[in-house]
């Protein structure tokens, strides 16, 4: 075994992928991160760069024209983009979230029709589960889909939809049988151009300001019956199965943001001099950095282990406790990201509190990872129900 002992480390190819995405992110995404945040605008430069280098939706299987990246490779892409710009990391992350229901449960026809344009970079994909009165209790949704011959007619409001208005495609969960609660929910692909689809005003958020979050209004949206993802009544199960995998990508985002903050703070404390020496020479500072790095590395290892499980489950394994691991990784990594980014601000002192330095943006971006794809309180419910 010796130097080639390969447990608990990514493969050489994963390391090369990280190197490639990091170089791209630093050259093409980082320079716009502050402006994207300040101006609340979509990071078009990031989308263009990711598409040009086939990194915008790496999870799409090769059979549908995608890169066919495994779950860990997808995590690495999201992590490295998040390291420089949280808003931009929602491009690869939400492309996976939105399209995974189709990948997991869609018919061959749906996959061929919708995954191809996603892989090519012609269309982005969003995920529409939450509603104004159905957040943690997603099964309490009110959006209805009513059968009408060879069509379904959708009516309702979806809230907190990431990249709404920018994405061409939406996985929409809607009630098809109100008597069956979660087993009466079905999933559909809705297109931005379908008649009756419109969007609310962008939410005014604390962070991830470059990623539009809007309501999606469905007003008598009439779509062909073959747009249903999987069988009638399986939509909620598909939605939950999707989150098992994509919570790992939120963990990836969290560790990326935290790494960005730690890297910045590390550089700062070596430059900043007080009492005649760099503040990095003070043990009080060193202890903070050690704690930040320790927590971050623990979060990363948990996330990568969860990603490996996600990949094995995708390949058909039934022996993985992905539900626990996905929730644990998301919850732990996002809590760590919050702690690390707050400490990064502390290390920069007054400068860290200003918008002239990137760490306050990173803290604001980190906050959402504790909330979306299930609050961390919900993650703990999920973990408790699925203890290893």
């Amino acid at each position: 075994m010796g130097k080639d002992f390969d447990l608990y480390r990514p493969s050489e190819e994963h390391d090369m992928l990280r190197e490639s995405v990091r170089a791209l992110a630093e050259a093409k995404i980082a320079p716009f991160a502050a402006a994207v945040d300040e101006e609340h605008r979509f990071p078009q430069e990031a989308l263009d760069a990711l598409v040009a280098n086939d990194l915008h939706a790496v999870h799409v299987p090769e059979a549908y024209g995608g890169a066919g990246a495994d779950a860990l490779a997808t995590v690495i892409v999201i992590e490295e983009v998040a390291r420089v710009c949280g808003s931009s990391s929602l491009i690869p992350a939400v492309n996976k979230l939105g399209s995974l229901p189709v990948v997991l449960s869609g018919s061959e026809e749906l996959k061929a029709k919708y995954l191809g344009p996603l892989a090519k970079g012609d269309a982005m994909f969003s995920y529409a589960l939450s509603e104004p009165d159905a957040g943690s209790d997603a099964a309490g949704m009110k959006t209805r889909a009513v059968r009408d011959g060879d069509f379904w007619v959708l009516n309702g409001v979806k809230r907190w939809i990431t990249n709404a208005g920018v994405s061409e495609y939406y996985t929409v969960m809607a009630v098809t049988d109100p008597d069956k609660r979660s087993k009466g929910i079905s999933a559909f692909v809705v297109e931005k151009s379908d008649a009756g689809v419109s969007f609310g005003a962008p939410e005014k958020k604390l962070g991830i300001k470059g990623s539009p979050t809007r309501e999606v209004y469905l007003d008598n949206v009439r779509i062909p019956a073959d747009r249903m993802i999987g069988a009638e009544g399986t939509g909620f199960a598909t939605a939950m199965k999707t989150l098992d995998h994509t919570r790992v990508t939120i963990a990836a985002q969290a560790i990326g943001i935290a790494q960005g903050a730690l890297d910045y703070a590390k550089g700062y404390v070596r430059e900043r001099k007080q009492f005649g020496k760099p503040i990095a020479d003070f043990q009080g500072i060193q202890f903070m950095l050690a704690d930040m790095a320790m927590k971050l590395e623990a979060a990363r290892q948990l996330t990568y282990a969860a990603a490996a499980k996600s990949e094995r489950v995708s390949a058909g394994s039934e022996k993985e406790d992905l539900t626990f691991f996905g929730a644990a990784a998301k919850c732990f990594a996002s809590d760590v990201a919050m702690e690390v980014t707050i400490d990064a601000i502390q290390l920069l002192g007054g400068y860290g509190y200003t918008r002239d330095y990137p760490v306050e943006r990173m803290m604001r971006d980190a906050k959402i990872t504790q909330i979306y794809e299930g609050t961390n309180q919900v993650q703990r419910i999920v973990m408790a129900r699925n203890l290893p």
Partner: protein
Amino acid sequence: MTLKIAVCVKYVPDATGDRGFADDLTTDREAVDGLLSELDEYAVEQALRISEESDDAEVTVVTVGPDDAKDALRKALSMGADKAVHVNDEDIHGSDVIATSAILAKALEKTGFDLVVCGMASTDGTMGVLPALLAERLNVPQVTLLSEVSVDGETVKGRRDGDSATELLEAPLPAVVSVTDQSGEARYPSFKGIMAAKKKPVEELDLDDLDIDADEVGLAGSWTLVDAVAARPARTQGTIVTDEGDGGKQLAAFLATQKFI
């Protein structure tokens, strides 16, 4: 007929690291990570673009370097090159540009080529003369320092942007060209490219394979020898002119003493 494009690439110490010299005054490979020379990435990019424009082309990346130089080849393969040639031999250690050009020329003759693409210089030695030396040894035309390059049938064409003129140049194939950092941004390896690179062939060659005697190359066979190295002296503070009404005159006087005006 397959258009055979060879790209000469160099494995260099990371310029952002703390670069230094070993005891024998050659590059210290231990102290700092190495990578594919950034200026050679432009050469790989242009070779790939020419290949993509062509109906039938094959891109081979060639390097002369130690074991770790395979990382530079791997990067070029993950960008999209088809195969690689790695000339690696302990006796090559310490070769100057003239010795290196002799090894590369032999390797290129063995591999076969219609077009050789080089970067404008390495980012470590920055000699910039290797393309010319190669062309001379291979007895083919050289078209160097191009900011634009294309292949049209049996001819390579390009544009060289000089200080006072822009030249449009062409040469019949086979030929050697070098491209500048203005030739077009190098692509980033995609996930597919990285996975594909693992399966691409890398041919290992040593001096015996190329019929080169050990004493023609390496420290012993090189025409140039590094006698001593010294760090660049730290910048000293410049002259501060206090403006008491005659600042302009003082400034002009200073510039005149430095022969700037």
